[in-house]
């Protein structure tokens, strides 16, 4: 019984010390975060979803990425003024995607660095995934922003909203 009591006491000591160190460290760390989870609402009124702010801007500094509406995404597409990155898996991409979009799954981001470095970092980039049920577009946008792309938006309506609007799509051969 004494051993169990000592074990519980030791566990509490480790947990309390860890908690105090963790909280104190946030004041010192360059990328420290607050105890309270900051929430950002993304998406249009019809598909607004609350996501943690760290998902959009994990380092809490500099310019953040933001959502782009269907209309603005389409305008950028029509004017060929933006590169569209599809953050879904290659299988989903092959079965249908926004016309001229480039497949860049978040999990393959590091593999794609050599290719991404050949692009114009000042070019407007728009990321998307399925729609409001996925966060891959937000993650990819955050990664691109951290890499140095100056104007990055995530199109939260995603593939489903684009498809529903009847805008240009294509399948991989």
């Amino acid at each position, binding site marked *: 019984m004494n051993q169990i009591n000592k074990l519980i006491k030791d566990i509490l000591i480790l947990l309390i010390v860890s908690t105090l160190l963790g909280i104190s*460290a946030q004041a010192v760390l360059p990328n420290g975060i607050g105890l309270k*989870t900051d929430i950002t609402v993304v998406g249009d009124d019809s598909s607004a979803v609350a996501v943690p702010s760290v998902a959009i801007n*994990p380092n809490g500094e500099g310019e953040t990425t933001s959502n782009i509406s269907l209309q603005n995404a389409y305008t950028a597409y029509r004017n060929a003024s933006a590169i569209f990155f599809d953050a879904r898996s290659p299988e989903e991409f092959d079965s249908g995607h926004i016309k001229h979009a480039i497949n860049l799954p978040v999990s393959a981001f590091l593999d794609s660095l050599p290719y991404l470095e050949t692009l114009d970092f000042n070019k407007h980039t728009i990321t998307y995934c399925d729609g409001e049920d996925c966060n891959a577009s937000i993650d990819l946008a955050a990664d691109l922003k951290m890499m140095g792309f100056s104007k990055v938006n995530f199109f939260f309506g995603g593939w489903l909203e684009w498809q529903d609007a009847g805008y240009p799509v294509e399948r991989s051969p």
Partner: protein
Amino acid sequence: MPPIIENILSSKYGELFVRIVQVGLGVLFIYASLDKIWHPGLFAKSIANYRILPLPLLHISAIVLPWVELMCGVALVSNQYQRAALTILSGLLIVFILAIVSALIRGLDFNCGCFRMDSEESNMGFRKVLQNVGLLLSCALIEYRVWVVQPESRIKFTRSN
């Protein structure tokens, strides 16, 4: 546990082997904690990707978890608070395994946030489950040695004169 295993674990070489496993486990958890401590925002993002934890608990988990890993790692290496560290780490590993399996079942694909925040090799996959099961078995081995084979004292290096 078969008597032969107990005999091996209670021998000098068994003791040395378990000690090496314990230090290795401690060093691994210290290593795993450092990148998370340095990038709490990225770690919070990794936790959020699992879509398990309620949002109000996100930041506090991302702040405390890496320090728990660090303190437990230091405890294992220094052989202090060893049982408490093993109990905490076993609990954490079970939670990690369940979280990864749940993410795999739901078809989620992202960096698991296990060791490094920016590493391609940290991608979600069945390999990550096996990795965590291996770590859990290592904890179980040390706990068995500490609680059953040699319950009266912590593992100590015995120096032959």
